[in-house]
């Protein structure tokens, strides 16, 4: 199973030279196994996917963790949505007083977007995520609500014995620098347990987090602690703060590495990188 990182930046896209290495596009990753593909989140990173080459079948599946703008900004602009021969299945969290379709419609309609959801040329099929694991092709998908403002899920995607966990926006503990000591009291724990790859929110340093408690994101320290507790085999630190340059992020990351020791690889997410598990 391959995981391609198309968008790694959080909050809003950046285009400066100083953010080119880690990438300026907002969250979108692709899970690939031979001819089967899944798209997770539809930030501006989705615009980097080569749909002409790799999405020749009619159906495309997009799984949304939540509807914050940085995770859906690319939805109205990616090529297949204007193709009447395409069937686009969008999966996202329910759990609101409004349906997923109603909530998406707020973004995909004037004045925020020139075209009404109902007038989009492709066939859109919108699914609220079930509470139970489900299959798309050969991928087994589990979603769980996690701690982040508004209905937000994390995903665990399994293919055979391999798994990848994607929790791009997550504040497992509010106002605390450590997790509860009991594993079953940790938000997202089951999704992360023994996963081969964890792609996880790590927007802040521990110092920055002190002033950003309750904003829905976590520190590199918490991401690594969760990863270690859940025995994830590899951690990719995701959702880079757009106010920080690549140099800033790298400096914070190096400082983190110099003060912590873990027995699994940890790296910063780099837009365009492909990871094999």
């Amino acid at each position, binding site marked *: 199973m391959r995981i391609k990182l198309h968008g790694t930046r959080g909050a809003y896209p950046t285009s400066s030279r100083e953010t080119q290495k880690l990438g300026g596009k907002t969250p979108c990753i692709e899970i690939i196994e031979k001819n089967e593909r899944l798209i997770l989140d539809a930030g501006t990173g989705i615009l980097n996917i080569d749909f002409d080459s790799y999405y020749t079948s009619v159906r495309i599946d997009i799984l949304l963790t939540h509807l914050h703008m940085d995770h859906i900004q690319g939805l109205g602009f990616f090529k297949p949505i204007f193709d009447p021969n395409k069937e686009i299945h969008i999966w996202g969290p329910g759990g609101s007083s409004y349906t997923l379709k109603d909530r998406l419609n707020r973004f995909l309609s004037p004045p925020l977007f020139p075209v009404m959801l109902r007038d989009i040329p492709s066939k859109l099929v919108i699914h609220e995520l079930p509470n139970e694991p489900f299959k798309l092709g050969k991928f087994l998908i589990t979603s769980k*609500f996690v701690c982040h403002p508004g209905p937000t899920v994390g995903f665990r995607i399994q293919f055979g014995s391999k798994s990848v966990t994607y929790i791009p926006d997550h504040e497992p503990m509010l106002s605390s620098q450590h997790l509860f000591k009991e594993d079953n*009291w940790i938000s997202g724990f089951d999704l992360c347990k023994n996963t081969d790859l964890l792609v996880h929110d790590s927007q802040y340093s521990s110092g920055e987090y002190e002033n950003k408690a309750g904003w829905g994101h976590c520190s590199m320290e918490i991401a690594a602690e969760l990863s270690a507790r859940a025995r994830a085999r590899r951690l990719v630190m995701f959702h880079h703060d757009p106010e920080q340059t690549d140099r800033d992020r790298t400096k914070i990351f190096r400082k983190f590495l110099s003060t912590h020791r873990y027995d699994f690889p940890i790296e910063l997410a780099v837009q365009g990188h492909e990871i094999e598990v």
Partner: protein
Amino acid sequence: MSAHEIEIILSRQLADCLTVPVFIVDPEGTLIFYNEPAEQILGKRFQDTGEMRVGDWGNDFYPHDEKGNTIPPADLPLVQTINSHVPAHKTFWIKSMEGKSFKISVTSIPIIGRSKEFAGALAVFWDNDLKL
């Protein structure tokens, strides 16, 4: 053991920050968390007891009425909420570790989150003699 639902986890995070006693139970009525102020009522520390089954914690603080008659667990608000999945409220007496009775009011609410499934219940205890 599976992780608790996010609404339960967030309830504990809230309870951790409160100075009023809070009890959290799972759908079966097992007491899965109580905060430090609640430890004063139970006379036990959560880190020592861990989870407690409903028959155990329901009797531990000797709930009784004005005349001293014991109130069975099934009549306690938290147990009623577990059974009915609706909020419940009751004023009654409990005994401190020193054997002194004091009057409390208990309000319990069901915890039903975005999955629409009953994840448990939360109860707040209020000491009626407390002077703020």
